[in-house]
């Protein structure tokens, strides 16, 4: 075995031992990664299935159909039937966001196509919620009118969808979040491994190594990458098992996540060299992950944000990773670039990140 391989293996073993001694840190790192999945899942609830009380004072078939159209129209409302008093109490407690009062005689009016007024009480807790709740009414009214072939409806829409199987928002979000989970885990572990060398002042000893001083450090980074890959695989399995998301192209998913681990380990090593303290690293990486989340197409194709933000998104590896992950899991194309181009960009990022980390570490060792 050559001295280089010995040094590399030594670094790898040393880091594995170090990580085995700090299981709590690994657990916390994994929890941070899962936190992203939970966080985006909760965000995914925003704007759909707004709990809305329906006080049906009519009780007829058409009144029931009206409420059903509210439920069915674009996931806006989560309808709950209540009496007036319970509905008022629920609104006061914040259990429902609005109350729709279907008046007595509604069904008769609808059957005779005569006008009727419906009262809708909205808890305008914020402008977004209020707009969402109000915007949901015309589609429900339209759906009801079209379904019952009301005269006077002169325009309808005929929709052609680009995607045959529409993906739910939360399954979409959690797949994007896998890239950020990789960033948190791989970045934190790699950055900590490097920063610890500075904190414990052991970097100087590396110069005594019979090989290049960065080789043992590379061994340590290989170890953190291996542990990160396992943690990210667990997160991916959680997405598959917990959210019922089955990858359409598992090989592409594995390749993208592995590339993410390599890139983010190198970025983490760079951050560790820059900060040289272990204490703020996890917070810094957590904060950076949030910033990367902003403009990576994690919510919807990044180009829908406008060209300026889309151009900025290209400076982040997460953009390309999300492009591949959405294709690998849901079979979606969310970037104008093709999947091979996204892979090429990620590989380019990996080479660049490794180069920058190497240069930074070499400079640090030399000084």
């Amino acid at each position: 075995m050559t001295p280089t391989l010995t040094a590399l293996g030594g670094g790898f073993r040393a880091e594995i031992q170090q990580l085995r001694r700090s299981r709590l840190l690994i657990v916390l790192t994994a929890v941070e990664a899962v936190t992203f999945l939970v966080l985006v899942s909760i965000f995914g609830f925003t704007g759909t299935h707004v709990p809305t009380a329906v006080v049906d004072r009519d009780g007829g078939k058409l009144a029931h159909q009206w409420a059903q159209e509210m439920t069915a129209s674009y996931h806006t409302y989560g309808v709950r039937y209540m009496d007036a008093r319970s509905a008022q109490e629920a609104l006061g407690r914040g259990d429902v966001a609005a109350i729709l009062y279907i008046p007595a005689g509604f069904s008769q009016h609808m059957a005779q196509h005569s006008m009727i007024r419906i009262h809708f009480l909205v808890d305008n807790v914020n402008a977004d919620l209020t707009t969402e709740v109000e915007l949901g009414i015309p589609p429900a009214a339209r759906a009801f009118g079209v379904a019952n072939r009301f005269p006077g409806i002169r325009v309808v829409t005929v929709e052609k969808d680009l995607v045959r199987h529409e993906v739910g928002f939360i399954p979409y979000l959690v797949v994007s979040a896998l890239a950020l989970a990789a960033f948190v885990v791989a970045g934190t572990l790699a950055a900590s491994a490097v920063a610890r060398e500075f904190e414990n002042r052991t970097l100087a000893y590396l110069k005594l190594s019979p090989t290049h001083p960065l080789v043992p450090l590379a061994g340590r980074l290989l170890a953190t990458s291996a542990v990160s890959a396992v943690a990210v695989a667990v997160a991916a399995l959680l997405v598959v098992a917990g959210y019922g998301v089955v990858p359409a192209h598992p090989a592409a998913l594995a390749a993208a996540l592995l590339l993410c681990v390599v890139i983010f380990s190198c970025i983490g090593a760079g951050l560790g060299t820059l900060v040289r303290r272990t204490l703020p690293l996890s917070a810094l990486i957590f904060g950076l992950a949030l910033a990367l989340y902003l403009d990576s197409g994690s919510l919807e194709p990044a180009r829908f944000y406008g060209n300026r933000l889309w151009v900025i998104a290209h400076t982040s590896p997460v953009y390309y990773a999300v492009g591949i992950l959405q294709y690998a899991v849901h079979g979606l194309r969310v970037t104008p670039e093709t999947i091979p181009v996204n892979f090429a960009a990620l590989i380019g990022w990996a080479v660049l990140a490794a180069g920058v980390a190497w240069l930074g570490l070499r400079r640090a060792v030399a000084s």
Partner: protein
Amino acid sequence: MTRALRHTWTLAAHDVGLWRRAPWAVAAALIPPVALGLLLYILTFNLGHQPIALVNEGHGRYSDHIAGIFQAQAGDIYSLVTTDRANAMRLLNSQQVAAVVVIPPGFDAGVARCPALQPDQIIRDYTYARSGCPAAKLQVTLNNANNNFADEIRRALSETVSFFDAPDVITPVSETQLDMSDLNPYRVNVMTALTRTSTVDYIHYAVIPCLVLLILSVGVTGTALLCARDIERGTARHLALAPVSSVVLVAGRLLGGVLVSLVVIVPTLAIAALTGMIAPPAGHWVPLGLVFLATSVCAAGLGAVLGAVLRGTRAVSMAAAVVCTYLFFLGGGFTTIQFLPAWLHRLTAFVPTSYAIDGLRQSLFYPRLFGFGADMRVLLGTAALAVVAGGVVVRRAWSR
């Protein structure tokens, strides 16, 4: 008594000094709330403005009228590009727009086939209703990569199309205003009333709770790191042997945690008030201060527990970040609680930060402080509990 207070204050001041001299600890506490605040701020700009291409191939007043409605509603619920069909499809394929709406050449003839309702017209022609009318068709091609923005677009288009036939399906005005409901083919006029006198814009509603995260993060991380540091360096034993009552020492540590939070939040609030970011109604500064004080006491107590239970400053800082993040978004800091499913909504009732966030919003946005008393009762109760738990755990850790 005075002596005990002086000792408490001395230890608290010492802790604040230690924290101020640890810039990395300050960074660890500040980065997550600042990043999350930024995230929420930018996310609000992306809500509800999907890009749509409109192709008007119709020639006539109805085509122009509906195109005009699209133009008028653009900016509020979507952004609009008017172009020809070939370019629209190119924009759709390159993801520059999320949907293409085509007003086809036969649109005007289609509309003309279905006569609009006349004022005062009551329809009783069931044969006509049953047969329906072959309405004009708007062709929509939609990039439905996920159902969230696809539904947003469908809802927005439906709103626009509804407006063509019935501008008054929703009437968010007083009953005395002009009522055109007789022209409405949907035969319903939904009269909307709002429960609150003012509607808070989403940026303020979403970003302001980050102040709670800030105070939580600084308080928990600050107190936890101070406790962990004492244990890591062995100075906890010195404290245990000091000729001062343990109650005084623990009180000093917790007060230090509270002061650390206040050192950050007071200037932040001052800047926010001076720049006009926050403008609480008259007389609401005291309730606002009470929310922050109670939250900082909760944070200090929680931080003391974390710092005494976990070993190592790194583990403590990571755990603090995770705990604060969960407390923040389960407390409704990251979303509107009303949107959450029932089980999650019920869970938030057991998360004290939800009361802090609600209290903060009540004191900043609403004149009547609705439910503020209940919020404060829960928050102060939690603060008392956190102080007792923190005190007991810290005292035990020092004795080990």
